[in-house]
């Protein structure tokens, strides 16, 4: 058999590569994978790539891109070479993720209650009062188990030192988990030989765990509480995922117009047999669109009276409104302190070094080093509104300097990380390193759960650090592999 992949030409360029170490040898978690890839010649590898493409089309895995010509449903961009992590390493990360979400939930609960953390001087008050995602409407509410963010998607990156760092927490309506599951389904068809040894950990229990989490939130302690997934509709970029999760959990996928809040302050859905009470809503609509009676008045996506029903304790919302307050990138900078404050523990997972522009000294540092740093607005997601210093022009830097001076509270800066890479198929038989990140999903209600791995997103353009699918990013299957320590 002809060896096709020329690993001696695979240059990791002093970056941390997930599969190949600095000497060009496969890492232990990737050993079997690399060995298998070696046994495939160029045309076989190309055939596997095409199989993946056809599979994605057949399974209808898609996401929606908004353009001026309307919304386009695009096939999910996928690279067939998986990214591997050893199981032992992963269990430490998973523990860190659970710890982090536990602390964040205590923090959110505190903010809507006594605000002890502010009174104790750990966090300055104005950081909360000026947050775009703090909802005064939520003050005094006590959700089940004291949990506000039930579903969290945390973005991890790996730096040159090979350590995982938390880049951001997504506590509002994190998406991507369906793609994580689909990536595995595709990979099983494309590289079936590798699943025979049973050392790649399964990922497909997520829908069941999500379902259990939602059931445990039901205000009515009945045998079969009514759980629904609330979607903004077919035009939302994550509609595929909403439908997928509803289908996997066997719950109804509803839009705002399918629900109503009656005079008894309970939520009902309109069914062919009349109105049926709803117990738990897994909502994939942003806070501000949830209830036109309370938030944006002309929102047609939400349900009038929903906040009233939630406050009365007649329905559970996952995630709870107001949970996004901890999504703020300024709050992010304080998470290590938040963990120490509530849990009296040291953080198991590190943050990326973060400069707060509201602090005069840190701001000056940021302004002096705009060409080296990544500057992010506090409350944007999807990779929008960022400055990537080393890739920016003088003009862009000047624009950001002005933005920062005008509203320092709204900006943070971080060193430009040299995100880790993994071999990615970029042409027939041609593998090159591409940068990637990892989004695991964490569930918390009565119990906590972390996905086995998560969604690996990869920047398909050479040298690019932008992994968002809305901006040309792709994805890979993520393998947590039993066996030797790294």
């Amino acid at each position: 058999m002809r060896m096709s992949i020329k690993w001696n030409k695979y240059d990791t360029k002093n970056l941390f590569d997930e599969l190949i170490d600095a000497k060009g040898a496969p890492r232990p978690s990737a050993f079997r994978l690399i060995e298998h890839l070696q046994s495939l010649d160029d045309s076989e590898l190309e055939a596997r790539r095409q199989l993946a493409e056809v599979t994605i089309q057949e399974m209808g895995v898609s996401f929606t891109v908004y353009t001026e010509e309307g919304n386009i449903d695009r096939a999910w961009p996928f690279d067939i070479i998986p990214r591997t992590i050893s199981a032992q390493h992963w269990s430490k990360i998973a523990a860190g993720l659970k710890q982090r979400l536990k602390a964040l939930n205590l923090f959110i609960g505190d903010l809507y209650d006594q605000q002890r953390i502010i009174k104790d001087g750990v966090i300055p008050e104005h950081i909360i009062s000026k947050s775009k995602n703090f909802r005064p409407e939520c003050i005094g509410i006590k959700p089940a188990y004291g949990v506000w963010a039930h579903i969290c998607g945390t973005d991890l990156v790996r730096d040159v030192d090979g350590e995982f760092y938390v880049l951001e927490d997504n506590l509002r309506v994190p998406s991507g988990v369906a793609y994580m599951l689909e990536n595995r389904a595709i990979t099983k068809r494309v590289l079936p030989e590798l699943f025979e040894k049973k050392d790649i950990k399964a990922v497909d229990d997520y829908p069941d765990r999500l379902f259990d989490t939602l059931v445990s939130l039901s205000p009515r302690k009945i045998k079969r509480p009514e759980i629904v997934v609330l979607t903004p509709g077919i035009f939302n970029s994550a509609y595929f995922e909403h439908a997928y999760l509803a289908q996997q959990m066997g719950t109804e996928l509803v839009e705002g117009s399918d629900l109503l809040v009656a005079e008894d302050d309970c939520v009902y859905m309109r069914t062919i047999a009349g109105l049926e009470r709803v117990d738990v809503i897994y909502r994939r609509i942003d806070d501000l669109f949830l209830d036109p009676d309370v938030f944006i008045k002309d929102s047609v996506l939400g349900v009038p009276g929903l906040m009233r029903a939630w406050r009365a304790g007649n329905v559970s919302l996952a995630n709870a409104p107001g949970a996004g307050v901890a999504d703020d990138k300024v709050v992010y900078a304080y998470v290590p302190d938040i963990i120490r404050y509530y849990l009296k523990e040291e953080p198991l997972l590190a943050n990326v070094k973060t400069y707060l522009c509201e602090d005069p000294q840190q701001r000056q540092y940021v302004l002096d080093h705009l060409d080296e740093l990544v500057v992010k607005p506090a409350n944007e997601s999807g990779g929008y509104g960022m400055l990537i210093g080393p890739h920016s022009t003088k003009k862009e830097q000047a624009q950001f300097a002005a933005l920062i001076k005008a509203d320092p509270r709204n900006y943070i800066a971080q060193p430009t990380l040299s995100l880790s890479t993994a071999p990615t198929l970029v042409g027939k038989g041609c593998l090159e390193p591409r940068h990637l990140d990892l989004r695991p999903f964490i569930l918390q209600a009565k119990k906590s759960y972390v996905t086995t791995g998560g969604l690996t997103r990869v920047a398909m353009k050479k040298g690019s650090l932008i992994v968002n699918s809305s901006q040309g990013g792709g994805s890979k299957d993520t393998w947590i592999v039993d066996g030797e320590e790294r």
Partner: protein
Amino acid sequence: MLSKLAERLYWTARYIERVENTARLVSVYDNLLFDLPREIDISWYNLISLNSAEQLFEERYKVCDEHNVLKFLLADDTNPSSMLSALRALRENVRTSRDVLPQETWELVNELHIFAKENIQQGINRSNRHRFLEQMVKGCQQINGLIVGTMSRDAPWQFLCLGRNLERADMLTRLLDAGAAALLQTEEDTDLNVSQVVWGNVLRSSSADMSYRRTMRSAVLDRDVAAFLLDDPHFPRSLTYCLSQIRGAAELLPNGGDVLEHIDKSLARRYDLQAPDALGITFRDYLNQLQVELGELHNCFDQSWFSLNLRGNV
């Protein structure tokens, strides 16, 4: 089951039928026109009248020729009942009810949609028309086959059943009416049994020619054809069969009372096909009335299951 989902499934079934019926109708007409002598005044435009689309057509086209009629019926996306429009609507409905339909439904509908878009010109031009339309009919039959073979007979199935049978019943009244109209238009012809050609055409448009011959054991006779298509209890596109299916579905669904009552009251009237001149103008009146009643039946579905938001109270 959500009202909205019920409504989407109902329309899914209606649109599958509509796509299939349109393709078959054009295909059958294509054959028929070869058989009729030039002086007989049956033209492509009859298909426009059959679909009650005269006004819509005249707003768009000046010339009532083959090309324009076919373009309007098959491809025109400003005509909401064109084959492509129906297929697009089918696709949107399936896309938003994937959680209750067999997994492969989306794939098949998607494939058929792509095929139709890419080859629609073949339906308008003459040379490959037959083959193209045949493929369209087969595509619909494949989707229906998948659904019949793999879906549980629970509420979602019942809504598909309502849609499929109402669309079939509606189409049937239109086909019969077109047959009756064609004969009223043509003078007695000595050389050719026009009646036989026209009613044979009605049978083929309903995929009923085989079943008709086996059941009625007669040649194509106008009254027999009408009797078969209206009253046969076994043929899946006869009016009686469609209504009994709708009745059966309504009995199994919650809130079906109004639908049952409407069927038993307004749709139970039998037309006397043995009366002299039974297939004349009174037949057309009867069929028109039937179409009105079927429209009412749709409204009944809407009020019983789809539009609970209008009631809104617990």
